[in-house]
Structures are given as C-alpha cells and as structure tokens.
C-alpha cells in the first residue's frame, strides 16, 4: 500500500487547519505524527480516512483518490480522538455492529480481538459504564479487528495502564511486521521514538519536518 498526500489544504469556517500538506507513506512502516494540540495531527488522520474532504489537494491511496475514486481507504482501521460507540450496547455488540458492515470477520474473530486488547468478551456491561481505559481498549479493538492494511491510531495509549501499553505497543509492531502501514500520534515523545520508523513533525497545519527515528537511522546505517 502506498499513500500520497498531495498539497492537501483544508479550511474549516475560514480557519486553515491543514496547509499544503505533502506526505508519502509506505507499507511496513510505523509513522508517528507529533505536534502541539491543534497542530493538525488528527486532521491529517481524518483526511487519510476520508472523513474530511480537501479544500484543495488530494489523498491518493494506491492510485485511487479519496472523494473521487473511493470514499474511504478500502482496508483501514482507525481510532481517531475518542473511541465512539453506541453507549447502550456492550463492547462485543458494538464491535459486531461494525463488523457486520463489511462482513469480513466472524464472531470468534471479534472475541479473539477483545481478548487480545485485554477485554472480557462475555462482559455484558454497556459501553457507557466502561472506564476510560476500557473504552480506549475497545476503540483499539475496533481498529484492529478486521486486520486492516492501514491502521490509524490517535493517542492510542491514553488512559491505559502499563501492561496495556505494552500490549498495544506489541500489537502495533506486529502490524508493521505484517507489512501494514501504521500511523499514530502520541504525546509521549519517548514512546514515539521507541515504536516509530519515521516521525512527521506538524505545526499550525503544516509539516515542518520528516525524519527517521534514531532506531531507524541506525538500521539504515547498518
């Protein structure tokens, strides 16, 4: 999979939230988006998912332009901002509703995914009664359950305990090793450096710098 973001500009009620963004993303890599609050990290993620359409420019995924040839990437899992689910449904039921849309996976796959993120598939508790960490885990489960080629995680470690952070970190690395693209944002710069291959620095809706992480730099040198 190859994603090309070309001169992507987005204005929202006269505010320039993305300003001429150019970026190329390739399979088998983890990309970290870093920047201050409101810098445009989440907007770039939304643009790649097809949730926002450009004022000018485009997002091209394997030769298909979002909003023109396709509405959304054909294989994407995303957790953007807060995990959004039907508050009266249980975790399993929420995932089932989402999974039924594409019908790619079975109930046992959903159960397996819930176990992988550390949730109890038999838990009948409604989503509204979940703790912050449980909500976050369910959001991650929804993003990964269909084994997407493109995984987008916005602040995936929010509200997670140490054990869960380790679990999610391993999950992300597993995805990368399966030749998928992972895009994540995180406020913890140490975490980002530890996981990612490339860091994209964003400020005021513009890409300021794209660099290899230290780990990746060493790999390239070798």
């Amino acid at each position, binding site marked *: 999979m190859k994603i090309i973001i070309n001169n992507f500009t987005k204005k*929202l009620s006269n505010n320039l939230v993305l300003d001429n963004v150019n970026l190329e993303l390739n399979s088998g890599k983890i990309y970290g988006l870093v920047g201050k609050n409101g810098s445009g990290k989440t907007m770039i993620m*939304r643009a790649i*998912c*097809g*949730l*926002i*359409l450009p004022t000018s420019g485009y997002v091209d995924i394997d030769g298909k332009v979002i909003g023109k040839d396709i*509405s*959304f*990437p054909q294989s*994407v*899992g*995303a957790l*953007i*901002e*807060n*995990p*959004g*689910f*039907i*508050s*009266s449904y249980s975790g399993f039921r929420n995932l089932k*509703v*989402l999974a*039924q*849309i*594409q*019908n790619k996976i079975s109930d046992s796959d959903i159960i397996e995914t819930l176990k992988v993120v550390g949730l109890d598939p038999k838990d009948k508790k409604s989503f509204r009664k979940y703790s912050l960490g449980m909500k976050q885990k369910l959001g991650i489960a*929804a993003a990964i359950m269909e084994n997407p080629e493109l995984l987008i995680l916005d602040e995936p470690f929010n509200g997670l305990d140490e054990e869960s952070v380790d679990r999610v970190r391993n999950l992300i690395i597993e995805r990368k090793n399966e030749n998928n693209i992972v895009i994540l944002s995180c406020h913890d710069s140490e975490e980002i450096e530890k996981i990612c291959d490339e860091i994209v620095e964003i400020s005021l809706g513009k890409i300021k710098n794209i660099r290899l992480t230290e780990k990746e730099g060493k790999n390239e040198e070798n």
Partner: protein
Amino acid sequence: MLKILRNEIKRGFCNNLFFISMLISGILVLWYSVERIPFCIESNLSFSNNAAFDGFLEISYTNWIGSHNMYLQQNILYLIIPFLAVLPFGNSFYLDINQGFIKGICTRTKRSYYLISKYIAVFLSGGCAVIIPMILSFMISSAFLPTMLPEASYAFTNIYPVYKWADLFFVHPFLYTLLYIGLTFIFSGLTACMSLFVTYFLNKSFLVLIFPFFIYIFSSLFFELLDLDGFSIRNVLTTTGEQGTTVSVVILALFFFAFSFFPYYLFGVKKDVL
C-alpha cells in the same frame, strides 16, 4: 449497501425506545378499546333486540382507533404521532455523530450508503411504531364486533360521500382501512425522518426529537389557516373531517419526502465527519 441497511434496520427495531413507543400507543389503544367496544356491543344488542331501534350496527371498520377523530384517545393518538414515530430511532443519527460512532461506519462503508440506510431505517421504525398498535386496535374491534359491509346510513353520519375514498369504504371497507393504515405508516415514517436534517444544526438530542412534532403541528395549523385543510397532515390521516383528496395526499407526501430527504442527504455526503 444491503449490509449497512440490514444493520440500521435491526438497530431501528431492536431497541428499548421502539418498545416504549409501542407501549404508549398500545396503552391508548387498550384504553380506547375498553371504553368503546363494550358500548358498541351493547348498542348492537339493543339493535338486534329492538326492531324500532334508531341507529346502525356498530362494525369493526368504524370502531378501530383510526376510524374516527371523535374520542379523546383518538385525538391524543393523532396529536402524538410525531413523538411515537421519532422516538424509536429518530435521534440515532444525532447520537451516531455525537458519540463518534459514525467514524467507525464511514471508514467501513460509503457515506451515501449509510445516509440512505439511516433514512430507510428511521422511516420504517417510525412508521411501524405507529401502525402496529393501530393494527392491534383493528384486530380487537374485529374480534368483538361484526366485520361486514357498512350500512348505507353511515354515509349520513360519519363517512360522507364527498370524503376521500368514501366510495371505497362502502364497497371494500377492508381495503379502505388498509389504505388509511398505509397512509398513517407513510406519514409517520416521513415525520420521523424530519429529525434527520435538523441533526446538523441542533446540539441537543431532545430538540431533535421534538422538531418533527413542531413541523407536524405548525404545517397543519398553517394549511388550516390558509383554508387548505386538505393539506393539513392532521386531517389527511383521519378518516373524518376535511381530509383532502388523493392529489393533496400525494402532494403532501412528496413535499414531506423532499423536505426530509434531500437536504439531509445532500448536506450529509459533503459534510466533514469531525
């Protein structure tokens, strides 16, 4: 498209609010039946026991909850139709957007498919929530009262020959009843769908739920004030009164459809999901 449609319809019907809506109208139907049916049975007995009885036989076609607008329960039912219709699934679009569930949907299917599926599901659940208790009312009436052709004398009391589809009533009363139930289904569904477009502009779930009620009441009052009673939705749905013509029904239905669907859809496919 079919998968998301099936999903939305399932959500529209398998929820507590759908049952609450049916429970409210079910209570009204039972209340009406308990008051009306014994009276009709007694009246029919007097009729059969007294050759000089001045009246007509009470039959099921003229005594289900949608057959008049003369009784309190019927008036309440026709007043709260928008609430009953919108309650099951009318604010689901608002909740999908505000709870963020729409992000999970729009990364799995085309937005246009989702919007159309949502419209159909809101329409069907709204329509069914209103007509299922009405069908129940007709079944109760049929269980206790004769189901036979109406007497011609009924034309001088309730269904006047100038009324919409009156000819059909005296020849095929069952078809007439089905037509009115169908009409109620369509307008209840369309009224429920009025909640979709306003979702883009309102920031409270309850406002989304009461908006169709205002459209229902104000459009009725507006047309009645203009002396266009045939375009008042309140009148169109009841089998008595100034109830319009087939043409006014079709025009009103098309207007409701256009108003509830096109702004919602055209705005929705372009709107950013934030």
